[in-house]
């Protein structure tokens, strides 16, 4: 199963909005904004984000893959999910 980049970003953004940005009604989250740097999630929150991504997109994140490179921004998450989905398909 492949999910388009824009759809991954939209669904993750909605999830973040609903669960981590509900206290900031006017917060604009850019695709490349650092989730930690911008205060969107704290380090506890990343676990919740990963659980959502795994369930939503049917991918598994290994312990060593939980990194800034793969989960640091919406773009990074979209790239990670797309790569994982392509591996599953292949």
């Amino acid at each position: 199963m492949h999910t388009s980049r824009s759809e991954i970003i939209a669904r993750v953004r909605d999830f973040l909005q609903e669960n981590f940005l509900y206290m900031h009604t006017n917060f604009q989250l850019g695709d490349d904004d650092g989730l930690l740097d911008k205060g969107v999630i704290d380090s506890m929150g990343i676990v919740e984000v990963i659980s959502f991504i795994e369930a939503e997109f049917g991918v598994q994140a290994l312990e060593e893959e939980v990194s800034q490179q793969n989960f640091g921004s919406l773009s990074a998450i979209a790239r990670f999910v797309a790569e994982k989905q392509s591996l599953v398909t292949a």
Partner: protein
Amino acid sequence: MCGIAGIVRRLPSGVSVESLGRMAASIQHRGPDGYGFFVGQRVGFAHVRLSIVDIDGGAQPLTNEDGQIIVNYNGEIYNHPELRRELEGKGHIFRTLCDTEILAHGYEEWGVNLLGKLNGQFAFAIYDRNRETVFVARDRFGVRPLFYAQSRGDFYFASEIKAILATGEVVASLDRRGLDEIFTFWAARPPRTPFAGIASLEPGTYGILKDGALWLRRYYELDYPEEAAEPEDVIEQLDEIMLRSVGMRLRADVPVGAYVSGGLDSSITASLAARGSPHALRSFSITFDDSRFDESESQREVAADIGSIHSVAAIDQGSVANSFPEVIWHAETPLVRTAAVPMYHLAKLTRDSGIKVVLTGEGADELFLGYDLFKEVSVRRFCLHRPTSLGRQRLFDRLYPELLGEGRGGEFWRRFFLGAGTPSDPLFSHLPRFLLGARAKDFYAPQFKSGLGEVDVLAELRGSLPVRFFGWSSLNQAAYLEMTTLLSPYLLSSQGDRMAMAHSVEGRFPFLDHRLFEFAAALPTGSRLRGLREKEVLRRWASRILPPRIRERRKQPYRAPDATSFFGPNAPAWVVDHLASDAVRRVGVFSPTAVAGLIRRCRAGLATGFRENQALVGVLSTQLWYDRFIEHPSSQTPLPVQGASVLITEPLPTFA
């Protein structure tokens, strides 16, 4: 231990005994064993007594020989027998056996220099009728509280803010900056409180009030004159100070008990108390039904080792939620953690067991660098020397195995710790905590936020640091910040004095003997924190009194259940009422929309992080605090003058 309160008029218009009676009534929990008044033209004092020393003769307020010095005092002066002998040698005649009288004669003899001679925990007011001054003071580390307010030239003081408000002459209102400090440091930084116009006398400070003007001066400064090497007899010196400190704190005319947390510090104080006590020691612990917080096995082991008669207060989520409103009433401040609640129940158990005085281990972590925060600052500095070294960053996993060892957010935590400020920032050690704490501010209402303007409480803290701070090592800087921002205004207050005194229990803290502080502050930091081994010299010395299993136990941070307590099936109804959008809007500190989202997350069991837990406890406690103190202040029925064990009125009698 007692409660004190008073009013000082700028003009001799009189102080009504009804006002003093209301003040006394509001803090009667601090002293249920009796009360007394001094009623004068300019000055009125109220005192509620918890009788511990000289049960029959220690009633207050108390005067000197000629009635010109009137003392209103809360606390313990542990070296009172020594000071008494010294004063008697100078011709002073004592009428009681109580430590209170030391203040009357000591003030006559030494004036304000009396403070340097006191070893103890105290807050007091002394009215000098000759000079027409009132002298107020608080102990070195801020164990005992003293609040004050000035209104139209009159001065009000008390052990608790509720006594000042009980006069009806000072109206409670919210101090935005005080709240902003709470949501950064966990407590407002003295002299600030969450109440506008009501101040906390800073630890180690005294004030002289004359003609309506208050002149403040600090008499004790924390200093860290770190030596390059340990003294050769470091263990002998520590032994002498510890034994003397505990011995002095066992001086009482009632049995002294001990709190046992299961950790090193309270094991030391309880062990020494058991050895020095003339009766079988009673010890008390908190247990949790949630195994993440529970240390009951360690506690039982300590109790068995020292041979104490041990009792436990069992805490579950229901007991946290149900007693939270009373805890806020006693703490008099919004809180960001529920950790005060178990201390409230522990004090109740202690008092119900017939014990009025307990020794506890507070202060050891600050003196001997016991908290993880001190290790954290060392690891952060070490990593920032070579920020790309993953091996160095793995030290965080050892430091916080529960966060980083098995969790999936490890790299994010490491990044957080490494991104939280640079070593050149004087607040470097505490920025991770301050930044995490401040996440609750995300929930502020826009108008509350805009009302704060450009306030930057971190910048204010930086600006308040003494010049000598910049000459200390980074660990001593961290220790100073811990002592001044957390120990006194939060741990000794919201979790300490207030919770114990809610049930008329006096806490005594052998580690907060100023001789011990000065001894520890002069040691090389490596004697206190060696690598990642905390309290190193204390553990070395403790081998004399504790078995290895207790001595070497790794510290478990003291925590209590937070958000989950308020959303279970048995959650009390007030939670919903106080979190309703109109209630949140009325108080105006938090955004109703943000709070609604927070409730949704809490109900779904998703609020597991620091931000939401602290925010939930912060919102609930702010709502409760505002309701009890500002929106619906209760009126006090005055304690009747007929029931007073002491009533002194002007003109005063003279003593032969």
